[in-house]
């Protein structure tokens, strides 16, 4: 009798545990990511490796053959990642501080999946052929949802619910 009530008690404790944790986790827990993570650009489902860079205020994407047509920008992703041609509305122009000085760059909005998170974010476009990673994710992207542990690398595989 006592055993049964004990196990019932345990069960109810558990049930409440289950009922309450999921919200708490999603509200407070950030996803820990490493120095390099694969992300998927949506809706095109192009997979790109991204450098996770807390030293960069804003994210930026390697855009080749970039041309501006009024309020739109046209560019290609690097050939290594399929060379997909994209046309996107320019959200704004921003001066970006680079090692070579100030540079004026177009900013577009992109949707991407990193780990289990699907995120819309602003990225500036620049020819980054000199640089190893086609996408730099800066503090504007990281601050809400992610914590960076540089000991890790590619530990948050893209797995957003509605992307196969």
């Amino acid at each position, binding site marked *: 009798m006592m055993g049964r009530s004990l196990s019932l008690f345990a069960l109810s404790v558990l049930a409440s545990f289950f009922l309450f944790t999921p919200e708490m986790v999603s509200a407070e827990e950030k996803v820990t990511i490493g120095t390099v993570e694969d992300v998927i650009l949506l809706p095109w489902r192009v997979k790109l490796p991204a450098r996770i860079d807390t030293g960069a205020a804003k994210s930026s994407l390697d855009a080749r053959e970039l041309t501006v047509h009024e309020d739109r920008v046209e560019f290609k992703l690097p050939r290594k990642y399929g060379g997909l041609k994209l046309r996107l509305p320019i959200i704004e122009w921003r001066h970006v501080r680079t090692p070579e000085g100030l540079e004026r760059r177009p900013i577009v909005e992109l949707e991407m999946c990193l780990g289990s998170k699907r995120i819309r974010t602003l990225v500036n476009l620049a020819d980054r052929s000199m640089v190893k990673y086609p996408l730099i994710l800066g503090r504007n992207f990281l601050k809400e949802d*992610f914590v960076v542990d540089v000991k890790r690398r590619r530990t948050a595989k893209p797995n957003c619910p509605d992307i196969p």
Partner: protein
Amino acid sequence: MKMVSKHNRSQKSSASLSVGLMFLLVLIIPLLPVGEASAGEKMTIGEVEEVVLMPWGVRVSARIDTGAATSSLDARELTVKNNIAEFKLPKKYGSLQLRLPVKEWQKIRSADFKEQRPVVEITFCMGPKLIHTHVTLNDRSAVRYPLIIGRNVLKDNFVVDCMHSNCLPPSCPEVPSR
């Protein structure tokens, strides 16, 4: 007969107790924050943290930069003679003059020219940790923070949360109180 049934009952209840406990354990074990335990040992820092350069006790703000492989320090009026680097910290930080042995040279590939920068060893206190590390010396007058802390320092002790800054004040016993 009576004894047996009593025995049976207690056996039954202890069985259901242990089943309940087993159930509890099986359900709770996967919930235990296994990943967190290792992250828990690492301290969370923000995008900018105050550190104290030792043994001089100079406080500087450091940019926490996961995009930088190594750390670097803003060195003004830098000269190297007989493998000793001599430089000043920025005025804002008291223009402290330092003389430190060059441990190695770092090759920098910029867009169109090659450069070599001296690397020295420094000690600073970040949070409760006294850290000895190599830093590249470089005139960084264009940049806001005199010290960039890169992955070489971050990897063993810290995780970075860009939502915060100055969340782990220096607390090494070696640091003089303010």
